[in-house]
């Protein structure tokens, strides 16, 4: 199982700043947007982005967290039910511009589930997608609006984005092992 470092902590910080800048300067998302982090690692990423956005516009966007396990399209195939984590969206979805945030964009099925979940909460003004790493291999027609880093990966590789909040360290690495579905 070989590990390769894709991004160091310093590179991660630069990338987050770049993403925040793109979100702020993008046409409709300057003011009044809120972020929703997906499942585990989208949440610390959303919080870091919110902080950087606050530095640029002077107002911190609210950050919600979304567990998509109840919306997965493979629930009848897994033999054990995935553990349900907290979903907490502390703002109204109706009429709000929402940026979904996730660490890795892979098949796109997680994002499909996240959009279904979000729309059950209300009718957002728009939904945009910010991902830290786009590793290709899409199985649905879904693309990100804001991408930290786009890379080509092999099927048997796993991209792991680690944050201090969840993994006690900030780095991104690629491992060679049997590919796990996100």
């Amino acid at each position, binding site marked *: 199982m070989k590990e390769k470092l894709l991004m160091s902590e310093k590179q991660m910080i630069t990338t987050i700043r770049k993403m925040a800048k793109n979100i702020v300067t993008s046409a409709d998302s300057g003011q009044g947007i809120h972020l929703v982090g997906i499942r585990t690692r989208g949440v610390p990423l959303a919080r870091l982005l919110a902080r950087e956005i606050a530095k640029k516009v002077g107002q911190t966007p609210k950050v919600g967290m979304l567990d998509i396990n109840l919306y997965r399209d493979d629930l009848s195939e897994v033999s054990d039910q995935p553990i*349900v984590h907290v979903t907490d969206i502390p703002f109204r979805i109706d009429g709000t511009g929402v940026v979904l945030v996730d660490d890795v964009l892979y098949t796109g099925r997680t994002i499909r589930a996240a959009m279904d979940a979000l729309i*059950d*909460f209300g009718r957002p003004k728009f939904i945009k997608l910010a991902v830290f790493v786009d590793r290709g291999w899409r199985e649905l027609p879904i693309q990100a609006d804001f991408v930290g880093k786009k890379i080509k990966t092999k099927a048997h590789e796993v991209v792991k984005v680690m944050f201090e909040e969840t993994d006690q360290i900030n780095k991104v690495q690629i491992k060679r092992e049997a590919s796990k579905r996100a």
Partner: protein
Amino acid sequence: MSLSIQNLLSIRDLKKSDIELILKTARNLKEISWRPIKKVPALRGKTILLCFFEPSTRTRTSFEIAAKRLSADTINISTGGSSMEKGESLMDTVRNLEAMQPDLVVVRHASSGVPQMIANWICCPVINAGDGSHEHPTQALLDLMTIEDAMDRGPRGRGPLGHRPSGHRPKRSVAGLSVVIVGDILHSRVARSNIWLLKMMGAKVAVAGPATMIPTEIRAWGVPIYNDLKEVIPMADVLMMLRIQRERGDESLFPSLREYARYFGLNCETFSGAKPSVVIMHPGPVNRGVEIAPEIADGAHSVILDQVTNGVAIRMALLYLMCGGKEKNQKLF
């Protein structure tokens, strides 16, 4: 992660890890009941049979709402209105229903042991929603969740429409807590399931009531018996009041409801010695003025309606954990 059991028939079948998984899942599913669209597709297309062969408001509705919020389909079966009135046996009824491929069956019956019998006849998972005087495991689970939440919150009155839940995990456990169950312990499946679950989680459990209603063998479980409510109230962190079951016939267990209410009911006089932080519970339906005075049932210490709200969350968690996934076990006869 999954439960170690296929059927939920008794609290004694559960491991501590199962209980933690159920409560954690329930806390995270609870917020669905506050969404504008109270539905998630997790159990879409699953069929859940609610076989209530004994009357029920709370439990049946709670299971039905829990199933529907997870997008499952529910079917209600009761004795009245079914072919059991024409003399069809329970076994035939259940096996015929199984032939329609349900994904899970919930059973309530007046006779102890029926859910176990049904589990032996059919392949799909069975949940015991109350059998005779034996057990009511889902009630004990929602009671545990309510006690943990109440301990975490501290004493303050609130109704079920209180703050929107955020899945926050309570810091205080029930270990070392003093829980007193009051009333007709002899006939109470709620008491039995609660005693086992609370003791498993480390609480100190005692029972109180007229001697005619308390089986003395209960001492063998490490549960002290009190026949004087005023003696035990000052030490209780939680008071769980049980319903006087008038429908269980004229067994003459006490002279009159009025006398029961005076000595074993929670009223201003008996309640005066209680701890300031005491939590009052009741599985419902409440006989106002008998086992509990109306002003206490509706007062700041009561978490009776929280129990009902948590009931939906616990049942959502159980249906989610037990219903999904491939066929884990194929029963062979």
